[in-house]
């Protein structure tokens, strides 16, 4: 039986780990390798690491960092940030990363999805869509470059296009809910979930394990990712890497996962 995945998402900025709120105000929360070591011990389902500087600074991914992370991870690693070419994707793949996440370049040149998939297999090509609700409208739009550029594209239509081009997973990240810790944007997830037949992971807004349980109850097998929830503790947001232990996770899943 396949289980839903509960995934910590870590952001790298100036070589340190940070957590943002609505993609702004990065707060330093620690060292990436150290965090991975802790998440190893906590036996997380998967981990996602995004270099939030690479695309914005228009530079190459930090291969040395990726290599160190991949070697340390005893769980699958999804890396994103700065990937623009098949060659870069190939190189990152050879460092031992299981999944490669692309975002801005997929919007500029969607055919790259297909070209990367041919090399690394479509199971490993992950598309991250940073999505923001349009003001005074029920519509959503995809933004890139840390929510500074509006592509004007509709996430639902684009997700379908990604699937047709051979993507392996879609990660929907809500800009408005990022770091707010008041729950996921269910309206957004609803819109996309049933329109694609790829695995989907949602990110942005988790404030408690109940938020995660709620998603599992509603959607069953789904990737549930969170940043703040797994790096902060308490109402004053003290930095503390955490993740449900084996028993907590089992009860969270068995209480919500209807199969």
């Amino acid at each position: 039986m396949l289980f839903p995945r509960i995934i910590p998402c870590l952001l790298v900025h100036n070589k340190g780990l940070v957590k943002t709120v609505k993609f702004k105000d990065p707060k330093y929360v620690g060292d990436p390798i150290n965090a991975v070591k802790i998440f190893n011990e906590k036996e997380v389902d998967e981990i996602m690491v995004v270099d939030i500087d690479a695309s914005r600074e228009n530079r190459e991914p930090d291969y040395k960092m990726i290599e160190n992370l991949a070697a340390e991870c005893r769980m699958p690693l999804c890396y994103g940030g700065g990937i623009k070419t098949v060659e870069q994707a190939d190189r990152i793949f050879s460092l031992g990363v299981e999944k490669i996440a692309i975002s801005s370049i997929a919007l500029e040149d969607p055919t790259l999805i297909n070209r990367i998939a041919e090399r690394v297999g479509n199971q490993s090509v992950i598309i991250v869509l940073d999505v923001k609700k349009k003001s005074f409208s029920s519509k959503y739009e995809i933004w890139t470059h840390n929510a500074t550029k509006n592509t004007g594209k509709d996430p639902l239509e684009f997700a379908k296009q990604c699937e047709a081009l051979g993507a392996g997973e879609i990660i929907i990240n809500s800009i408005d809910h990022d770091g707010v810790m008041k729950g996921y944007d269910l309206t957004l997830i609803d819109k996309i979930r049933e329109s694609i037949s790829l695995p989907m992971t949602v990110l942005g807004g988790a404030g408690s394990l109940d938020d995660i349980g709620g998603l599992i109850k509603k959607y069953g097998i789904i990737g549930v990712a969170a940043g703040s929830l797994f790096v902060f503790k308490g109402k004053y947001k003290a930095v503390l890497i955490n993740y449900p232990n084996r028993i907590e996770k089992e009860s969270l899943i068995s209480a919500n996962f209807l199969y």
Partner: protein
Amino acid sequence: MIAIINYGLGNISAFANVYKRLNIPVTIATRREDLKNSEKIILPGVGAFDHAMTLLQKSGMRETLDELVLEKKIPVIGICVGMQILANSSEEGVLPGLGWIDGVVKKFDSLLIKHKTRLPHMGWNTIKPLNGNGLFASLPEDPRFYFLHSYYFHCNNEVNTVANTQYGIEFASAVNSENIYGVQFHPEKSHENGIHVLNNFANLNYVIS
């Protein structure tokens, strides 16, 4: 010594790290000379079938591997696409596989998967070991492993399936024929259960019959 084949695919360091934790010496083989003293072989892999076969041919290790595995009967384990290339061919590509275990690699039929189909098969799933295969000795009940694939190994001889997993259909999540093993999941990324399987592989005693 266990040789980990480095042909440009898969997480070589993750395997090396697991064995380091277990205090089992390994060597990373990038050329055929590196395979000289190997007693066991790990063939890792993540990626597309043809890409894996192309890289393996290019590595210059193919002939030596054939000799070690087919003639000297050295135990080998293929991981993920490293398992799939043990087959004769794959629906994912046009190149022939190694043909070490009689079978073909097929794409999941999404029409057979309950609820709404999601491919690739991605995440933690349980496996059911069959016939007490030594690779799965003393694992907990319903052990979970990490899967990431859209194609599966179809064995032409049922006896070669040594563990199966449910995803729409029941498919072979592990195969074995004599000294040749393959697992579809990623033991190097499956926490304790994965370490356990890699330890079992290191301790397997294959007796040439």
